[in-house]
C-alpha cells in the first residue's frame, strides 16, 4: 500500500509540487518562529536576579565644584532623608549604568592569562539589599572595604562559570581588571540588567572607591512598599530638588523600563506569531480546497476502488496517506535546510533551540495536515460506488 502511495504521488508530482512548496515554506517559517520563540522563552524564564517592581530610578545633578568628601556627606544625607519618606523601604546610589537604562560599560583583556571580557556596574554598599539581590557565594560590599589591600569586586554567576568553571569557589581570587588587581568577595546569582531576553554575560560590580571615572554617583534606586510607588514620587522629587538645589531631577519607574527594554524582542515575536498564524490558516484552507477539488475530480476512482473491494477506512487512509506523503517530503527537505543552522553554527543561539524548533514545526504541520485531510477524505469514503461510477 505504501509503495502504491509513493508511486501514485510520484506520478502526480506536477499536481503535488504546489502543495510540496507550500509545506516547505510553512515549515521554514514555523521553524524560524518556533526556534526564535523557544530560545527567547528560555531567556525570559531565566531570573533577572533583582527586584523590579515597586522600584523607582532617579537621576540627579550634583554640583561639579563640590569636593569629594562633601559629595559623600551629601549622598549619605540624601539616603538618610529618603528613608524617612512614607512608603520608602530602601535606597542606594549607583554609577552610570542603571538597569534597563540601555547603556553598557565593558572592559576586557588577557591580564589574567585568559581572555576575559566583562560588563561593569558601579554600585555601593546598599545596592544588593535595595534591589533584593541574592548572593550564591561570599558577601556584598561592606563598610571598611576601602581599607583592603586590593579593591573588592562582586561578580555574577556567569563570570564564575565562564572564567573559573572548575573552581568550587572563587571568593578571595585576585582578578585583574583594567591592569589593576581586585579581590573577588562575592558572587551574585544572576544579573540581567539589559532586558529579560539578555544572554548571560560575565558581569562585575565595582565599589565607589574603584570609580575610575572621577565623577560622583548621580543615580539612585528607591525601593518602595507595594502599592505606594506612585505616591512616593512627588515627595522624593521635592526632597532631591531641595538637597541638590537643582531642579534637574528625573524619576522613572523601573518596572516600566523593564517592559520597554523587552520590546525589541516582544514586538517582532508578536508580529511573527501573527504572521505564522495567518500562514497556518492559509495553508489549512488551501489544503482543504485542494483536497476537495482533487477528491471531486477523482470520484470515479473512489467508486472504482470501492468496487474493487476498498473499505471506507482504506479510502480514507488512501487520501490522508497521499497528502502525508507529500507533506513528509516537504518536511524532509525543510529539515535538511533547517539543520544547517545548528550544524554550521551560523547564529549565536544554542543548537538545542533549532532542534526543538524543527520538532515543533514538524508536529504542528503534520497535525494540521492530518486534520485538514481527514475531513474531505472521510467524505470521499462515504461516496456510493454506483452513483460515482455512473457519473462518467
Amino acid at each position, binding site marked *: 500500500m505504501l509503495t502504491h502511495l509513493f508511486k501514485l504521488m510520484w506520478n502526480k508530482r506536477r499536481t503535488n509540487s504546489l502543495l510540496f512548496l507550500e509545506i516547505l515554506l510553512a515549515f521554514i517559517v514555523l521553524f524560524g518562529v518556533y526556534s526564535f520563540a523557544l530560545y527567547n522563552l528560555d531567556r525570559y524564564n531565566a531570573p533577572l536576579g533583582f527586584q523590579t517592581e515597586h522600584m523607582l530610578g532617579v537621576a540627579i545633578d550634583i554640583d561639579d565644584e563640590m569636593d569629594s568628601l562633601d559629595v559623600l556627606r551629601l549622598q549619605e544625607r540624601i539616603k538618610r532623608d529618603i528613608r524617612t519618606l512614607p512608603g520608602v523601604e530602601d535606597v542606594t546610589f549607583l554609577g552610570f549604568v542603571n538597569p534597563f537604562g540601555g547603556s553598557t560599560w565593558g572592559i576586557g583583556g588577557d591580564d589574567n592569562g585568559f581572555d576575559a571580557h566583562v560588563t561593569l556596574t558601579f554600585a555601593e554598599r546598599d545596592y544588593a539589599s535595595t534591589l533584593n539581590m541574592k548572593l550564591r557565594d561570599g558577601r556584598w560590599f561592606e563598610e571598611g572595604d576601602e581599607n583592603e589591600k586590593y579593591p573588592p569586586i562582586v561578580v555574577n554567576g556567569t563570570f564564575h562559570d565562564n572564567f573559573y568553571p572548575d573552581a568550587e569557589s572563587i571568593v578571595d581570587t585576585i582578578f585583574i581588571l583594567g591592569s589593576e588587581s581586585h579581590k573577588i568577595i562575592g558572587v551574585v546569582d544572576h544579573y540581567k540588567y539589559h532586558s529579560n531576553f539578555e544572554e548571560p554575560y560575565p558581569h562585575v560590580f565595582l565599589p565607589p572607591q574603584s570609580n575610575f571615572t572621577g565623577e560622583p554617583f548621580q543615580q539612585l534606586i528607591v525601593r518602595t512598599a507595594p502599592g505606594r510607588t506612585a505616591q512616593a514620587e512627588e515627595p522624593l522629587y521635592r526632597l532631591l530638588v531641595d538637597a541638590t538645589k537643582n531642579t534637574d531631577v528625573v524619576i522613572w519607574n523601573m518596572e516600566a523600563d523593564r517592559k520597554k527594554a523587552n520590546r525589541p524582542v516582544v514586538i517582532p515575536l508578536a508580529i511573527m506569531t501573527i504572521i505564522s498564524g495567518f500562514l497556518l490558516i492559509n495553508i489549512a484552507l488551501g489544503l482543504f480546497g485542494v483536497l476537495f477539488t482533487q477528491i471531486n475530480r477523482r470520484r470515479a476512482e473512489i467508486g472504482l476502488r470501492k468496487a474493487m473491494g476498498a473499505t471506507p477506512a482504506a479510502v480514507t487512509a488512501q487520501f490522508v496517506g497521499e497528502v502525508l506523503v507529500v507533506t513528509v517530503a516537504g518536511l524532509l527537505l525543510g529539515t535538511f535546510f533547517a539543520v544547517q543552522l545548528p550544524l554550521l553554527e551560523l547564529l549565536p543561539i544554542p543548537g538545542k533551540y533549532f532542534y526543538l524548533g524543527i520538532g515543533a514545526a514538524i508536529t504542528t504541520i503534520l497535525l494540521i495536515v492530518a486534520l485538514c485531510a481527514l475531513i474531505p477524505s472521510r467524505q470521499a469514503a462515504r461516496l456510493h460506488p454506483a452513483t460515482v*461510477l455512473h457519473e462518467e
Partner: protein
Amino acid sequence: MIELTNVSKSYRTDTIETLALQRLNLSVPDGEFLSIMGPSGCGKSTLLNIMGLIDEPSEGSVVLAGQPVTSYNGSKVARFRNEQLGFIFQSFHLINDLSVVDNVELPLLYRKMGGKERRRLALDALERVGLSNRATHFPNQLSGGQKQRVAIARAIVGRPNIILADEPTGNLDSHMGGEIMDILTRLNTDLGTTIVMVTHDERMARMTHRLVRLSDGERVS
C-alpha cells in the same frame, strides 16, 4: 449461485423517476456463462451493478452464496467484492495516474499479499490479454481496445468466482473480440468461473450457455 427475486430498481432525480429494472427474476447457477442482451437503456448495467453489490435494489431480494446480501455488513461487502467478484466496466474506469500494470494490481492492493506476488499476478493477467508489452505505459497512451483489455486483466487478476462483464468486446475488432471470448470461455471451463456478460453481439451471445433478454427493465426471455 446468484439469485434475484422480484428485483426492481428505480432512480429518482428531482424531476423524473426512471424505472431501470422491474420485478426481475433471475438465477445464475455456479459455473454458468450467461449473456444478457437488450436495447440501450434497458437496465443491463443496472442489473450487473446489483449482482456485483455496487448498487442496491429498490425492491426484491438478492441472494449471493446462499446469503441475502442485506445481511452483509460494510466490510463483508468489501471483502466479497474484492475476493469473489471481477468487474469489467462498460467505460473501463482506469486510473490515469497509474501505469497499466499498477492498474491491474489494484484489486490485489486490498488483499494481504506481498508486492512481488502482486506484480507477478498482474503481469500474468496482462500476458493473458496480450498486453505484456504495454505494462509500463499509462492509460492515456493506449487505444480504446487496449484499455478494454487492461480492464479485463484487472477483472481476472484476483481469480474471482464471478466475473461481471459489461460489454467486454464492445470496443474491440472481431479478431480481438474473439480472443477475449476465448479468455472468458477458458476461465469458465477451466476454473469454473461464473460469468455474466452484457453484449450487443448475437454471435458472442451464442457462444455462451444461456441468453437473457431485457427490454425496458423487464426480462423478456
